């Protein structure tokens, strides 16, 4: 029998991005005195995940003509009428509170106008200058300040603890705790809690090119699927058009070259060094992310590519010194990686960036399972089919705070800690130990094969035959993985064991993505079907829901509830201007 260490707490938070850290602070404020709070993270506190990597900023309506109603309508329109409207509303409404909290209580300092008000800019898809920022390193300011607040508080910290299973009670009616691997020792630890926030942060890293932090591998959604929870909008993978392309052997590949490069006049060139964007859209390189991503994908399909299979971004016509002055961080990062962004050509490719899909929750972050709450990128619904730039960190910080408040209140009605179902606990332990009793082999080639399959068959543009082929490829890789082992003689900080577990999660969620994408027979937001290019009837909008029963996944379509506004209508006052953003 494998030893399982125990740790009991009242409130458990998994993840230390914007959602997890805010949840810890709010839980401490709202829970009764003496409440034990534990925060667990796959890496180091504040260093894992993607909040730290936010460049652009934080969407929030702060007056000057902008309103919560306008932010809400932009979010609904951007999400192509698929968002859960109650969640989208709370996101926009509470962002106003949260940004004040970040400045006044957490200590962030965002860029100012000369009169001392917060500077705000307009991202694509927004009808107001709404994005609060700290230069182009907004995420570092937010996460560093949150991190130092949490570090100083009496919260139990479990760093380099990887969650591997949600363990319900024996009757399945509630969550009893979460099983972890303490990565530093390789041992198991069961943490029992009355309430658990899952905020592990999605991350579509099953694609050949991807932007998220390397520790993100969909562990949260894979656990939720196994626990029987409903996952919505799983087909909605947002691609950023310009990821760095530097070859398969480098972790630099896929990382984001910022949106502002195109906005400032950057040109995209195909392998023959000819501009091509105007063949696809009259806005050229300034078209929206999804349009540019599809255009590059189409050029790649036509083999009009660079040596590494992408296209070029060219800035030098703007004057290398000007580019260096305007984009110092990007130029330096490219230079560190061996590329001359200011004066030369840099290879780029669309790269999987953000996952709109996630666990079905209500606007209080509650799930169908008592004791389990979900916030941030793990939660589905707030963005629908597409996330606006600047709504990601607003979403994670707003709903992390909400989760902390709600958990702190809910535990008052909860009695003792619950007893975990021993069979599920044993099954999750066995699942993690599976590779240790097989003949060791290489994991990375299988990860690579999955990423190729998802990129080619379930990528920027999709069709039914491709996705059927993709399902077969995923199933083959998934089966192969179960035959490949990892040497188990030293489990302390054994990254190869974790690579195996990462790929296990990614295979499971890749199948869910593909089934949901097959079920959506229209094109909305981030999801584009070559065989169903039309938007479809907005009034009959549906979202996909994937569930697991036994080993099989089921997918269904649920109608969108237009709880605040119907397609063709608006909640803005009569005569409100279409946009407040000055024409460029």
């Amino acid at each position, binding site marked *: 029998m494998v030893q399982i260490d125990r740790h009991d707490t009242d409130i458990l938070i998994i993840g230390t991005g914007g959602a997890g850290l805010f949840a810890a602070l709010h839980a401490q404020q709202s829970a009764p005195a003496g409440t034990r709070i534990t925060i667990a993270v796959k890496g180091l506190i504040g260093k894992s995940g993607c909040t730290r990597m936010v460049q652009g900023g934080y969407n929030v309506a702060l007056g000057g003509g902008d309103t919560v109603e306008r932010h809400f309508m932009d979010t609904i329109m951007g999400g192509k009428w698929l968002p859960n409207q109650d969640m989208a509303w709370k996101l926009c409404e509470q962002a106003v509170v949260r940004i004040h909290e970040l400045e006044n209580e957490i200590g962030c*300092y965002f860029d100012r106008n000369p009169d001392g008000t917060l500077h705000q800019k307009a991202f694509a898809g927004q009808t107001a200058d709404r994005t609060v920022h700290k230069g182009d390193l907004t995420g570092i300011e937010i996460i560093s300040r949150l991190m130092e607040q949490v570090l100083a508080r009496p919260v139990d910290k479990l760093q380099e603890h990887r969650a591997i299973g949600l363990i319900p009670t024996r009757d399945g009616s509630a969550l009893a705790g979460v099983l972890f691997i303490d990565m530093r020792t390789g041992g198991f630890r069961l943490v029992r809690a009355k309430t658990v926030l899952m905020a592990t942060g999605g991350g579509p890293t099953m694609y050949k090119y991807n932007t998220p932090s390397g520790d993100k591998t969909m562990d949260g959604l894979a656990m939720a699927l196994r626990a029987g929870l409903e996952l919505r909008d799983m087909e909605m993978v947002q691609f950023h058009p310009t990821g760095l392309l530097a070859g398969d052997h480098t972790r630099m590949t896929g990382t984001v070259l910022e949106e502002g490069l195109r906005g400032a006049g950057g040109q995209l060139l195909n392998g023959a060094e000819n501009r091509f964007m105007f063949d696809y859209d009259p806005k050229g390189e300034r078209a929206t992310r999804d349009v540019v991503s599809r255009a590059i994908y189409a050029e790649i399909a036509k083999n009009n590519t660079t040596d590494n299979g992408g296209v070029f971004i060219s800035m030098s016509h703007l004057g290398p010194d000007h580019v260096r002055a305007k984009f110092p961080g990007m130029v330096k990062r490219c230079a560190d990686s061996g590329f001359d962004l200011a004066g030369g050509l840099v290879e780029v490719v669309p790269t999987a960036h953000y996952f709109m899909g996630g666990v079905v929750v209500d606007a209080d972050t509650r799930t169908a399972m008592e004791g389990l709450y979900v916030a941030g990128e793990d939660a589905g619904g707030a963005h629908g089919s597409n996330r606006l730039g600047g709504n990601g960190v607003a979403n994670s910080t707003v709903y992390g705070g909400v989760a902390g408040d709600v958990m702190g209140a809910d535990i008052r009605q909860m009695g003792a800690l619950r007893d975990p179902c021993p069979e599920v606990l044993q099954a999750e332990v066995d699942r993690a130990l599976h590779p240790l009793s097989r003949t060791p082999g290489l994991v990375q080639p299988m990860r690579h094969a999955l990423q190729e399959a998802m990129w080619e068959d379930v990528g920027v543009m999709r069709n039914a035959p491709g996705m059927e082929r993709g399902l077969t490829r995923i199933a083959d890789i998934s089966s192969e993985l179960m035959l490949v082992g990892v040497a188990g003689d030293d489990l302390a900080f054994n990254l190869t064991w974790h690579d195996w577990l990462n790929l296990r999660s990614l295979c499971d969620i890749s199948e869910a993505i593909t089934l949901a994408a097959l079920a959506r027979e229209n094109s909305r937001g981030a999801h584009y079907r070559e065989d169903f290019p039309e938007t479809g009837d907005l009034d009959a909008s549906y979202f996909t829901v994937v569930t697991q029963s036994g080993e099989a996944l089921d997918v269904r379509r649920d109608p969108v509830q237009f709880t605040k506004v119907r397609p063709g209508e608006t909640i803005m006052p009569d005569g409100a201007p279409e946009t407040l953003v000055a024409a460029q």
Partner: protein
Amino acid sequence: MTTTPNILRVTVQRGTAAALRQETFDVPAYENQTVLDVVTWIQQMADPTLSYRFACRVGMCGSCAMMVNGVPRWTCRTHVKKVAADGELDIGPLRNLPVIKDLVADMDPFFDKWVAAEARHHPSAERDDDFDPVTAQDPARAEADLGIECINCGICYAACDTVAGNPDYLGPAALQRAWTLLNDSRDADRDGILAAVSGKGGCHNCHSMGSCAQYCPNDLNPMRAIAGLKRETVRAAWGGKRDA
């Protein structure tokens, strides 16, 4: 893409504090290759038990900081060509910190000192209050902004000889953060910060050797911030005496 036929000779520190050893690997060299890619190749293709830490891949989290040929660096942003002209690399965990295993350092002492330096905002306002109208042109705010982009990677802490000689020393990063707070007009506990940075492990331990500024990948200058702390703590002490 062209793959150069060259092979890198890479020596890596292995093991835990109880038993450290050096191991050497031959790693294929590529045109586009960072030190993190080299470490990754060893783990994925040669020795699956090699332990290291990384997260963001783009120089925003600092998780992948290691000693490279004796110098602390972000491995994700260090091109092999920059550090291995002769094809040889020597990689170890960050200096001045306990080793967890192989290339993974225990960052807890670094962050414990961040807390000990009172390096966090002490609120003077609440969420219902307006934003403070201070602009970046305000001289104190401008001083704070010089150090605010620190990502707490620990490079300066590993580079600092004073940390190496004095385990109690709070170190450059935590002290620099304290200095940004002293220059933040919104912070409500100036006295608490000054007390925290003027004690036994405080700013006066700094010998101004400047390794922190020399090696900071973000071109920040903690030494300058610490000099500011020294002035302020002395001024506060004198002021205290006059008041007495």
